[in-house]
C-alpha cells in the first residue's frame, strides 16, 4: 500500500519536473513545478514528516508558485513564448550531476539508518525545542541569510536612480 502510494507520488513529482523542462509555455511550466512540489510534499507525508510536508505546501505551493506566476504575468509573455535554449545548460548539468552524486553518496552511507522500522513522527514540540536549542546556530544563520536576501531584494527593487539618494 505504502509502496504504491510512493510510486504514485514519485511519478507525479518526476512528471511535474519533466513538464517544467519540456513545456514551451512558461505558465504551464510554473504549474508543472507546483505539481512536482506537491508530489514532494506527499513523499514527506509518507515519511511521517508532517510538519515538513505542510511547510512545503505552504511555502512552495502557496507563496513561491504564486510569486512565480505573478512575475510571469507581469512580463510580456509573447517575447518568451517558445524560448527553449538556455546557454547555461552545461553549468546546470554539472550542478545536477554533482547533486545527484551527493544524494547517492549520502544514501549509500546512511542507508542502514533509513531502514529502521520505527518510522515515528517527531512530535511537533520536540521539533521546535531542538530547532531553538540544538540547532539554534543553524537556525540563526538561515534567518540571517533570509534577511540579507530581503534587504538585497529591496535595494534591487528600488532601482539605480534612487540608490544615490541617502
Amino acid at each position, binding site marked *: 500500500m505504502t509502496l504504491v502510494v510512493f510510486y504514485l507520488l514519485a511519478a507525479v513529482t518526476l512528471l511535474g519536473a519533466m513538464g517544467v523542462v519540456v513545456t514551451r509555455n512558461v505558465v504551464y511550466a510554473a504549474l508543472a513545478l507546483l505539481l512536482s512540489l506537491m508530489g514532494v510534499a506527499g513523499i514527506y507525508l509518507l515519511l511521517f514528516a508532517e510538519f515538513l510536508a*505542510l511547510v512545503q505546501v*505552504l511555502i512552495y505551493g502557496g507563496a513561491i508558485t504564486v510569486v512565480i*506566476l505573478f512575475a510571469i*504575468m507581469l512580463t510580456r509573455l509573447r517575447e518568451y513564448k517558445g524560448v527553449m535554449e538556455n546557454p547555461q545548460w552545461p553549468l546546470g548539468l554539472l550542478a545536477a550531476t554533482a547533486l545527484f552524486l551527493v544524494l547517492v553518496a549520502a544514501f549509500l552511507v546512511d542507508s542502514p539508518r533509513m531502514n529502521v522500522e520505527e518510522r515515528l513522527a517527531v512530535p511537533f514540540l520536540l521539533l521546535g525545542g531542538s530547532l531553538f536549542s540544538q540547532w539554534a546556530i543553524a537556525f540563526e544563520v538561515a534567518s540571517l541569510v533570509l534577511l540579507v536576501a530581503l534587504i538585497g531584494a529591496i535595494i534591487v527593487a528600488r532601482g539605480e536612480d534612487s540608490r544615490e539618494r541617502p
Partner: protein
Amino acid sequence: MIGREVALAAAGLVALFVGLSVVVLSLVWLERKFLGRLQGRIGPMRVGPFGLLQPVADAVKLILKEDVVPAWADKGLFWIAPILMFVPSFMVWVTIPFSRDLVIRNLDMGLFYFIAVSVVSVVGLVMAGWSSASKYAILGGLRSAAQLVSYEIPVIMAVLGVVMLAGSMNLLTVVDKQASVPYILVQPLGLAVFLIAGVAEVGRTPFDIYPAESEIVGGPFVEYSGAHWAIFFLAEYINTFVVALLVTLLFLGGWQWPHLPGVWAPVVVLVKTYLVVMVIFWFRATFPRLRIDQLMAFGWQVLIPLSFVNIVLTGIQLYYRWPSWSLSLMSLGIILAMAYWQYRTQTAPAQALARSYSQRAYSQRRGA
C-alpha cells in the same frame, strides 16, 4: 476494518457536502436580509416565506444558465481553476471541530494544516485570471496574488499568538484552554488582526480589491458563467464561514458556554459563528472599498507590524509569567493607540480643509 473506515470517511464527506450547501444557502439569504435591514430595506420577500427560498432559486438559475467559455481562453486551465479554488476550501473542513467529538479527523497540527491548505486556493484564482485571456481577469489575478500573499502573513502571525497561548496547534486543545477565559479577552489585538486579515483573505467588501466590480468588473471571474461561476461563489461563502468559525474556535471559546450541557456544543459553535459572520456582513454595509495602494499599505505597514507586536507582547507575558490580564491590558492599549492614530491620519486632511475654510470665512468677514 479498512472498509469501515472508508465508509465512515465517505459518509463524513457526504454529510460535509450537504452541510456546506445548507450553510452557503443560509449565508446568502442572511447576507441579503441583513444588508437589506442595515440599508432600511426588507430584502428578498417574494420567493417563499421571508424570501427563504430565494437562494435556492438563485442556485437553480445559476446551474441552468449557459456555461460560456471564451474562444481565446486556455480551456484546460479554465476548467481546472475553479476546482483548484474549491478543493482547498473543502479540505480544511477535515480538521475543524464542532464539538469535542464532532470532527472528521482531529490533527495534531490542525491549525497549521488549515493555513497551509487554504493558501493553495490562491493558485486557483491566479490561474482563473490568466486562463480567461481577458485584461480585466488578468488584472484581477495579479491583484489577488498580491493581496492574498500579503494578507496571509498577518493571518499566520495572529494564529501564532493563539498557538503560543495554548501551547498547541491542536484545535481541540486550543478550545479546551479557553475553558475559563476565552482568548478574545486575553488577546484582543490578535483577534482584531485575525478578523481583518481573514476578511481580506476571503476578499470581502472593504478588501474586495480583486473582484472589484466597479473597477475590473469581477476580476478573475469575469469570463466565468453558469455553474463554473457558482463554484467560485460557493468557495467564497465557504471561506467566509471558515474564517468566522476559526474566530469562534480561536478567540470566542468554541463550544464552551457557561452552564450548558455538552449536547449543545455544535449549536453554541454555530450561533457564535453566525454572529461573527454577521459582523463580517456588517463590515460590508459600513466600509467603502479600499484602493489597491491603500490595501497594500494597510497590510504591510499596519497589520503585519501589529501582528508582530502581538507576538512580542504574548512572548513577554508568557516568559515573565505575568497574569493574563496584563496581556489583555497591553493588547487593548495597542488597539486603542492604533485606532486613535488611524482616526487622526484619516480625518487630518478633512479637518485641515475645514480649518482653512473657516479661517478664510473668518478673514473675509473681518475684511468686509
